């Protein structure tokens, strides 16, 4: 495959350590480290390039579903089945604060650009914003216009984008004070933004990835071929925005061409469901995590 020559299809490292399913894996801001979290209620910090496990963060009471790190690598936030958002200090591994307020499991969590706000999305159909600067553990904003569980969240400098099982991708523009609702008609599992910030890739539960234009809400492209029907799975665009990467429930990884939606690469990455995909911000390097308990590092 000529077009897939630069794609990370070769396994470079396997990060073993999690006991049980790994639910999410994320690069840090510069792509030197990565964080994974899973059903064993721990967060783990790795150096994926050298394949070294650096630290384990334990405090969650139930499975950890998502993790995010600030751009200065100083703080972590994580969320999961215990309905709390944990705000960690990376170096000491201590929990600085716990944000309670979600009425049920928290699916996704993200820092804003300055690491001042944590925004979380929960099964309780709400998106909540938490202030990291003050001592208050009350949410500073609650958005509860969703009709179903909010699965994924993404923050830009001025917007909060959240995807829900009600089939909508909602963009909350803080600067303009408006809410844009893009109804896709299918439950949305995951959203991921293109690196240029113009498009949103939405993974839907009808085994389809949809690429939306953010300014107009138009459907730009549809990517099919993989299986995604019942698991929370991730999808992302490559660092060059040329390809779309997504896992499948059968353990395969798929790469589609962004423009013509053809599958340019497909390989078996895991033995079980690929729960999460993360792409290095600069290089052609990809992380995948799976229910089989491993995190794999892929390089071209």
């Amino acid at each position, binding site marked *: 495959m000529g077009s897939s020559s630069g794609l990370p299809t070769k396994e470079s490292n396997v990060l073993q350590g999690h006991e049980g399913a790994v639910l999410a894996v994320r690069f840090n801001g510069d792509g030197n480290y990565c964080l994974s979290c899973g059903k064993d209620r721990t967060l783990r910090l790795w150096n994926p390039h050298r394949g070294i496990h650096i630290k384990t963060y334990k405090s969650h009471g139930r499975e950890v579903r998502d993790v995010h790190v600030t751009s200065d690598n100083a703080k972590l936030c994580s969320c999961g089945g215990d309905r709390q958002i944990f705000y960690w200090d990376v170096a000491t591994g201590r929990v600085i604060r716990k944000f309670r307020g979600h009425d049920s499991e928290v699916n996704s969590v993200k820092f804003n*650009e300055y690491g001042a706000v944590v925004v979380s999305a929960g099964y309780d159909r709400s998106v909540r*914003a938490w*202030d990291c*600067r003050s001592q208050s553990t009350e949410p500073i904003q609650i958005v509860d216009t969703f009709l179903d569980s909010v699965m994924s969240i993404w923050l830009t400098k001025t917007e909060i984008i959240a995807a829900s099982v009600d089939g909508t991708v909602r963009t909350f523009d*803080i600067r303009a*004070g408006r809410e844009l609702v893009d*109804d896709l008609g299918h439950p949305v599992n995951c959203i991921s933004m293109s690196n240029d910030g113009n498009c949103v890739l939405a993974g839907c539960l009808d085994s389809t990835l949809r690429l*939306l234009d953010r300014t107009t809400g138009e*459907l730009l492209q549809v990517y099919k071929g993989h299986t995604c029907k019942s698991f929370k799975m991730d999808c992302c665009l490559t660092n060059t925005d040329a390809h779309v990467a997504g896992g499948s429930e059968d353990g395969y990884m798929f790469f589609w061409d962004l423009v013509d939606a053809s599958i340019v690469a497909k390989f078996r990455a895991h033995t079980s469901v690929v729960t999460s995909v993360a792409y290095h911000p600069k290089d052609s390097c990809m992380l995948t995590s799976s229910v089989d308990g491993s995190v794999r590092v892929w390089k071209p």
Partner: protein
Amino acid sequence: MNEGDEDFVFYGTPIEREEEMSRRKRKAVGDAGQMRSLPVWKQEVTDEEGRRRFHGAFTGGFSAGYYNTVGSKEGWTPQTFTSSRKNRAEVKKQSVYSFLDDDEKVEMGGHGLETSSQFDTFGFTAAEVARKQAEKDQKMRPSAIPGPVPDEIVLPAANSIGVKLLMKMGWRHGHSIKNSHSGKLYDARREARKAFLALTGNNGTSDVVEDDPGAVKSVDIFEIHKDTPVFVLEPKKDLHGLGFDPFKNAPEFRDRKAAMVFGSKAQGTKRGLFTTNSGKAAPGFGIGALEESGVEDEDIFSSGFEFEEPYVEEEPMETLRTKQDSKLRLTDKEHGVLVGFRLATDVDYFIERFPPPAIPGEFRPYHKFLTPLQAPWKTDDMPPPPEAPPPEEKDQRILIEGFAALVSRCGKIYEDLSQEKNKTNPLFSFLRGGNGYDFYVRKLWEEQQKRPHQRLIPAPASSAQKLTAEARGRILGEKPLKRTEETTTPVQLQYHLADSFTMPSSLAGVPESEKPFRDDPLKQARFEQFIKDKYEGGLRSISSSVVGSMSEAERARERLDFEAAAEALSQGKNKRSSSTLVPPVAAMQFVSSGTKEENAAAVAEKKKEKNYPKREEFQWRPAPILCKRFDLIDPFMGKPPPPPRARSKVETLIIMPEILKSKLQEAAADAAPSQPSDLQEPDTAVTERPVDLYKAIFSDDEEDGEEGEKKALDSSATIAESKAGANSTLNKLIAGDFLQSLGQELGLAVPDHPSVPVSRKPSGIGDPTKLVESSSKGKSAQQNATDQAIDRRRASDGYDSENSHSDTDSGSHSDSGSKRKKKHSKQHSSHRSRSHSKHHERRKRSPSRRSRSRERSRSHRRRH
């Protein structure tokens, strides 16, 4: 007082032992009389601890005042009774304690005497204390078991030290403490004393000895004394509270009471201890309870209070009351009379009660028409009746024409019924072979010839469950065939009149060209159903079963689409009627059936995909702190908080139009064949605006009405230019009124008024159809029906009275018509004023009526 009385000389300050000298004791000493007897300047003020107060001598102020008087500086705090709706005044229960000072309350102690727990031999106080403690604990901590813990469970071990000692000495519960030897000794001593006293010869003391209970009982030394009975089995016979003993402090009355109970005969002779003439006794001290109170010392301390002697009254009162009670209870049961009330002997207020009407056994709760609604109507084989000249009277002619149209439309039953109804009405003589009968017959025939399939309205009952061809086709997924259009002749006014009773059926079977959702057959089917429901006045909710898979929001959106499309259709209808000859190009799809099926699915899929993603925009207000944390300027800075966003479905429906408007307009533009609309072209049927229920509910009707009125004014002004047009309008209206009234009387649903033919009016006035439509505009079909019913009722009222008038002056034909019209309008106005006061909302809903009557009167004036 002299100083000599205080004979003690003290050196230094005596040290008082606090524990020795209880507070109570000190107080008692202070109060007992010593203080009172002293002159004021000698009296000492003490605080609640019993120490002397110096009235601020050392604190530099005068603090005499309220100390030792009442509890506050103000003395008795004056209180005003305030009670508001929010702050209800509590009903205060006053007790002795609310009037006592603090120290006095302390003095009262625990509401009575108690044994200290140390000497609580039988454990009663301990039990009480334990119970209180338990209660307190109960209040402190919430327990799993609600309510207080039962006393029986938590009874403490209440063996006091005394009991323990006694037990050790061999005492048992229920046994006398007195030991036999001491009792023996005691008895011996007493005997000796008795003997000694007997010697002295004093009789009085012997009584005392006899009274001694111990002496009487202690006969046998070895008798086991049971002087601590565990249970006192004594039935309670009085009406006092439990444990209350009225003779507690005056045991001598007990005997008397007993005597009275036993010998009620002796009641009359009040040989009592306390029988005074006045029946009252002084409550103060100084009089012995047993003293015969003389008249002179009867009321030494009388201070205006008159105390009823409680005992003397007790017995008779009690009996009296019980008697009364028993009597009342009896009557109570019988008549429901309150205690203390008596049933009036003569009642001047009766509630009249009527028995429910007796329903005959064979009654069946639905109406049966004597003749079948759709009477066999064989016109085809009937020879056409001869041509008949219309009656010279114009009204009559129009009436006949309209009636014929109606009968041909609705069936022979109308004729029969109205014939019966208007037996005495000379206007309807044509039904019975009178004036204008021939013309009527001819007209009827013409109407029937004109409309072979529209003759029969499907009766609601009969059409209920029949599977029509269309329905079958829908089930099978067939596309309805293009229906052959009827060529409408705009000249035939009566035709349109009748046609307007229902929506022309042509709309129900929309030809291919008019299908706005051609590419989505399912949606098209739903749309057709929608149209059908809409114009047949069915309930919309029926369609919900069809589209069960759709979400509420989708359904709402689709409904809006449909309404827009329906509007577009009805607007484009006149164009369609002229373009029927040209086969619609869009319908010419020649595809094989196999691929078509596949195509349809694909198309549906694609359509669905096309629908998504949908974008909507709402206002969203970020929290100021969020903006701050995101380093952004709050877009809502300084603005008042927006109203909470609509979350209910109804509200989203209201909001949605703004978003979808442009889309809908586009859809409408697509749906309507691109043909320039011609205002001059006759709009034959009442094409209602798409009914927007929500708008009808929420928008201001009054405005609409006024607008309609204004327009009516304008249009009536223009009407003046063409007399013929006005006349025809007028005639139509009369006929319409009549038909409505008829329909009303028959209890059959008759659709809306015929429209005023637009063609007669000069164009250029905003929207001439509004004249009629304004009354029904913006309302759902059901609402329309009710409105019409109201209108019709009114019309029928007016018409009836008119009939009665015309009965009187039927002789003069020359101007009877005009007179009648005048009266009619007058009648209308008067009637209107009546109904104004009665039904406020009716007035709102029928601007058209007003405009019509005005029009009528105007044109009439012009005529004269």
